[in-house]
Every structure is written in structure tokens, then in C-alpha cells.
């Protein structure tokens, strides 16, 4: 086989291999839940404003020493909320708005969070990979 042909074959193989890799990467889905109408920047402020930092250690939100409730680091990767609801936006918003209705008597109080604030909080929590 001539040098030029060998070179051509090598380049062609590289292109083929490269395409396969790129296509394989495209097949990796972004599984971050999307919260319609939720703004993570506002959500971060809301989490502090409603006092969530007093019980939860949340990256980027105030003092992160609290261990009354579970730490919320990597929250986006959790499969369940409070061991009871599957972790997806509607459930998370429902939980934030009224945890006492999901698990009556649980330690997390109802904090009269507005629907908009709950949406924003959920959007922020889903940035915590």
C-alpha cells in the first residue's frame, strides 16, 4: 500500500472514530430537571429569606453548619425527597409548599412559602449536582 493511501486510511479511521465518540457523547442525556418559571438566582435568595439555612446546609446559602435537616449538597442527584416522594419538580414544589401534608408531624414546618418562591427554590436546588 502506498504512503498516500496509508495516510488517507489513517485520517479516515480517525474521522470515523471521532464521529463515533461525538455521537456517543450526544447520547448522554442531561437529566437535570427543568422547573418551568423557576429562577435559580432568586431561589438562592428565597432559601435564605425563608430560613431554610437554619436547618439545612445548602451550598451557596448562608451558614452551612446546620444539621437539623439533611444537608442539601448534590440535591439534584437524589432519587427521593424526604424518603417518600420521587425527586422531580412537581413533587419538590409540593414538598416545599406543604411538608406537613406529605408527612404529618414531620420536623420540617410549613413556612407559608409562595408558589413562585417554591418554584425558584426548586430551580436552585436542581443546580446542586
Amino acid at each position, binding site marked *: 500500500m502506498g504512503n498516500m493511501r496509508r495516510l488517507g486510511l489513517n485520517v479516515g479511521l480517525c474521522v470515523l472514530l471521532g464521529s463515533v465518540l461525538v455521537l456517543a457523547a450526544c447520547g448522554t442525556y442531561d437529566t437535570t430537571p427543568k422547573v418551568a418559571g423557576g429562577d435559580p438566582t432568586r431561589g438562592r435568595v428565597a432559601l435564605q429569606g425563608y*430560613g431554610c439555612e437554619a*436547618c439545612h446546609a445548602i451550598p451557596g446559602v448562608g451558614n452551612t453548619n*446546620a444539621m437539623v435537616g439533611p444537608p442539601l449538597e448534590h440535591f439534584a442527584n437524589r432519587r427521593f425527597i424526604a424518603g417518600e416522594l420521587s425527586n422531580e419538580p412537581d413533587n419538590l414544589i409540593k414538598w416545599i409548599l406543604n411538608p406537613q401534608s406529605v408527612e*404529618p408531624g414531620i420536623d420540617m414546618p410549613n413556612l407559608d412559602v409562595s408558589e413562585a418562591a417554591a418554584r425558584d427554590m426548586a430551580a436552585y436546588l436542581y443546580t446542586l449536582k
Partner: protein
Amino acid sequence: MNLCRPKRGMIFCALVLFLTECATPSFIPGSSATPPVILPQGTAAQTNDVIEIFAHQWWWELNYPDQQVTTANEIHIPVGRPVELQFKAEDVTGIFWMSELNRIIGLFPKTTTTTVIEATQAGTFRGTCAEFCGVSPAQMSLLVIADPPDQFNAWLAQQRQIPPELTDETLRTGQQAFLGSACVYCHTVKGTNATGTLGPDLTHLMSRKTIGAGTLPNTRGNLAGWIVNAQDIKPGNKMPPMQLESDQLQALLAYLESLK
């Protein structure tokens, strides 16, 4: 190493007091239309408005002796009237620093330090402890709220009230949780058997803007975290973590929120 040596503290405090009290005006900056009220050092208050301020580790006990009002961490003063502040410290020396009202005051055990202030406009001003005496002085603030006179009188009247007997079932359960646990060893709620004085009086807890002496805004979420483990929020303060069942906590929160 004893970081709270009275003698060194006294010399420092006396020096600071001298430098800042000499012809220091007491006024609220930001109001160019209203001239400041300048009260020279040593001015007698000529006022009935006296507030006793006891510095504890790490909170401020407040007493209006002529008004039968006791509260903590947040004082209200009337706009346009001089008010005499009498600072006392129980066990350590301290410095009370309130830059917006132009005061820095040394506090010494068994001694009363007096200063007179006057607000020329309404507003909220923050003073803080400025002497290292352990873990928590950085989280020991005192809010000074200047109210128009009629609002001030309304606040006084509210602070004098004793909470009535409870009829609501949830509130009674919460009150039982409060009275049946260690809370009563440190806190007072007028009209109940809770007469502890190691911590702030909680009779009108919800009338205050902050908890933990200015550490966090006074909201249900922050209150929940504070009650369960105040050490996470203000390490070294004298309130221990509380062992509570979660339904007890919900009832307790409802009860505390009724203490307006």
C-alpha cells in the same frame, strides 16, 4: 490565657470612652434638614425615659424600670426625646458600639455606665458588642428602633400585656411542650410557670425582628432551626440543643408564634 482581663480592658475602654464622648454629637446621620442634637458629655437626661441594658454572654437584657417592661436584644426609643441608657455587665467587660448613633460604651462588671442618646428621625439602628470575650460576641447585636412617639407608646402598651389563658387546642399543646421541657429553666413567659432568667424573656418574642441577639431574622424557619440546635447557628452561645419530637416542634412553633 484569660482573654478577658478586666484591668487591661478597663484602661482600653476608659480611653475609648474618653475619646468618643468628648463633644460627640448624638444624631442620626442622613437628615440634612434636621440639625443634630448635641448632648455634651455629662448631660443629665432630664427625662423619664430610662432603659437599663444588662450585657450577658451573649445577649442583651433590657428593662424599662418606669414602664414595667422587660425585653431582650431590641430596644425602642421615641423620636425627638432624649433617652438615658444605663449599661451594666454581669460577668465580663464589654464594649457596646453603635456607629450610627455615635456611641461606643465600655461595660464593666458591678458598674453602671450611662449615656444619653436622642434620635431625630425614625429608623432602625444596629449596635453590637465589640469586645472579645469568648465565642459569640461577634453575634451579639442590639437593635435600636426609633419610633414616632405614638408608635412608641403603642409598643410600650403591647410589651406590658400579659398573654391571656389559651383556648386553642394546638396552642395549648405547644404551651405544654414549652412548659414541660427544659425551656423553663432559662426563659420567662409572663403569666405562666416559666420564670427562668438565664436567657431572654420570651413573653413578646414575636414583637422582635431578630433572634439570637441579631443573628437571624425572626421567622418560623429560623426559629425552628434555632430551637433544635442553636449551636449550629451561634456556636458557643449558652442555649443547648433541644431534644424534641417533630410533632412537638410543630406545636411549640405555633405556641411561640402566639407570643406577640
